[in-house]
């Protein structure tokens, strides 16, 4: 309570000053010499995507509290400066300007969505301030339109096509299937990207794609294509798409007597899926998520308990990603041994198999994470933790 009052007071006054002082910003973002490390959080605390931003903010608070109670980073406490970007790209840019030029933060956490993260990239690059988006999944967050990597931008969540890789590994290594069919939404880049990476990695693992079909969003009748798929006898069907169509596909597939495992990605994750498909039909199907509160792994379990104690509810993926982002940053600052932006950036790039709540985390040359993913199985309509696939 006290904290938030202080934060809002601070915010409103500094926003005013910001207009006057904005041009006087000096190069660099170092806050060396102080006994705190300033970290900015540029999040969607209000507006259309506020549920993502506030989820992450809650978990970031928890992580900062923990770190400060344990003595801070190299003896320095973290000073968290939260700014609401109102779920708006222009506001996100303004917030990034404020954080870098007035508050002179060491690093920025945020934003929750890809669009608002992209809006800060230029500021982060110009001021050499490392920026980590907890849940921006679009490739454009870290790789610019020209194909060049944005040097100071990172992310905690895996990118969309990575889920295809996870599905392929799960099918080939855990379910040990040899043949698979792919049935993708042809109208979405998300689904096409997942399908392409699944096919590539499943074939690389020695599997064979026996059928490759597609549908268009808003279709309702999938029976004829499913009959085709059935006749090619796959042992596994990968269906990247969104729950509205997937619910019907799963139901119709089971009605046609297709009993093999079905798998999708985070596009399935909605309670409506269970209504549409029916709990019975969903048995023996799997989805991928970043985090499950049922994960028995020590770190994840510990986090779930702490989170529940503080907020009285089970954490979701956004909570876990927000929490992990703080620890990812802490690890990098410790290894950099400095709060200099360029050194921290280099330290994040060198992150290798860092243990986080959402699993092991490494960074590839495009600043995309290579990390663990959680496989969830549907059992009588409920999501049950199945396994964690490590990279």
């Amino acid at each position, binding site marked *: 309570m006290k904290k938030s009052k202080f934060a809002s007071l601070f915010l409103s006054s500094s926003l005013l000053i910001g207009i006057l002082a904005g041009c006087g910003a000096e190069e660099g973002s170092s806050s060396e010499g102080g006994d705190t490390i300033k970290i900015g959080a540029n999040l969607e605390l209000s507006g259309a995507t506020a549920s993502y931003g506030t989820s992450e903010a809650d978990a970031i608070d928890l992580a900062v509290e923990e770190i400060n109670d344990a003595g801070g980073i190299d003896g320095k406490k973290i000073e968290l400066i939260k700014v609401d970007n109102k779920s708006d790209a222009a506001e996100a840019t303004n917030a990034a300007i404020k954080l870098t030029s007035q508050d002179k933060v060491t690093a920025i956490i945020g934003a929750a969505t890809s669009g608002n993260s992209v809006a800060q990239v230029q500021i982060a690059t110009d001021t050499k301030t490392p920026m980590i988006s907890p849940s921006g999944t679009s490739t454009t967050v870290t790789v610019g339109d020209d194909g060049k990597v944005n040097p100071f931008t990172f992310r905690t969540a895996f990118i969309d096509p990575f889920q295809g890789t996870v599905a392929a590994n799960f099918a080939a290594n855990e379910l040990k299937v040899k043949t698979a069919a792919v049935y993708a939404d*042809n109208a979405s880049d998300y689904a096409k990207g997942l399908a392409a990476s699944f096919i590539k990695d499943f074939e690389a693992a020695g599997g064979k794609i026996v059928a490759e*079909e*597609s*549908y*268009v969003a*808003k279709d*309702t*009748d999938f*029976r*004829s*294509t499913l*009959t*085709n798929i*059935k*006749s090619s006898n796959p042992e596994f069907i990968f269906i990247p798409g969104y729950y*509205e169509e997937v*619910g*019907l596909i799963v*139901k119709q597939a*089971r*009605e*046609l*007597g297709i009993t093999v495992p079905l798998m999708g990605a985070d596009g399935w994750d909605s309670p*409506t899926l269970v*209504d*549409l*498909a*029916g709990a*019975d*039909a969903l048995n023996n199907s799997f989805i991928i998520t970043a985090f499950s509160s049922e994960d028995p792994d020590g770190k994840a379990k510990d986090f779930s308990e702490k989170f529940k104690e503080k907020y009285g509810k089970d954490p979701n993926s956004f909570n876990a990603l927000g929490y992990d982002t703080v620890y990812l940053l802490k690890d990098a600052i410790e290894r950099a041994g400095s709060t200099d932006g360029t050194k921290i950036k280099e330290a994040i790039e060198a992150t290798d198999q860092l243990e986080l709540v959402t699993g092991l985390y490494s960074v590839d040359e495009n600043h995309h994470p290579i990390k663990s993913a959680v496989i969830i199985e549907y059992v009588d309509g409920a999501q049950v933790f199945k396994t964690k696939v490590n990279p």
Partner: protein
Amino acid sequence: MEWIQQLINGISLGSIYALIALGYTMVYGIIKLINFAHGDVFMVGSFIGFYSITVFGLGFFPALILSMAACALFGVIIERIAYKRLRNATRIAALITAIGVSLLIEYGVIYIRGAQPEAYPDVFSNRSFAFLGAQISIQSILILSVSVVLMILLQFIVHKTKTGKAMRAVSHDTEAAKLMGINVDNTISATFAIGSALAGAAGVIFGIYYTKIDPLMGVIPGVKAFVAAVLGGIGIIPGAMVGGLVLGVVETIVSALGFSLWRDAAAFVILILILIFRPSGIFGKNTREKV
């Protein structure tokens, strides 16, 4: 035995098209109006069925009958409010009004309950049995039989009852029918009632077979049913049935051949071909223009 399965898929889809197409064709037959709001009556019927099952806890048949009755009333109201006063207006005016009514219903429903989809409850068991290597679900058999029964009932009404006789007379020659003492307005209302009731039934069946319903669900089936009606010969009742089934089977075959993304295109290619080569449809006779 993949082809038997595909045939069953096609006939199930086609029988839904056929039920909707009947309403189009009957209304066109009697007042020469393409009632574009018909697909939305189908949607409303589906929602009435949904709420009577989930909220009032009715079974399939009571829900079906309630939905048909409510849609019949709804169809008559649409006709009385929107189309009756345009009886002597140009056909384009009536057509534009129909499109307006269609949009009004769609967005009226969105205004009332929002645009989110709804999942139909399972009223039949999902059990299916193997027949000649094909999986046939209990649902699709019941759905097919309901469609067939409704079509037979419609034939009976049109050919064996006084209302049916009046409908045929008005369709043949409105002026002469009036002179013979037939109440033309009531006959037209009866036509709307019957056509809309069939659309309501199709809505409930669609919901059970395809599970997902939403306020814009009537658009594509409505247009497809229109194609089916033209294919069979618009204004001809058996034509709508055959047109619907043919369209359903053709779409399924197109998907089965691996061109699932071209399925919708196939329906419209059929429409174009029919309009070029046989504008009066499969069952149509080459009628002379009345002078």
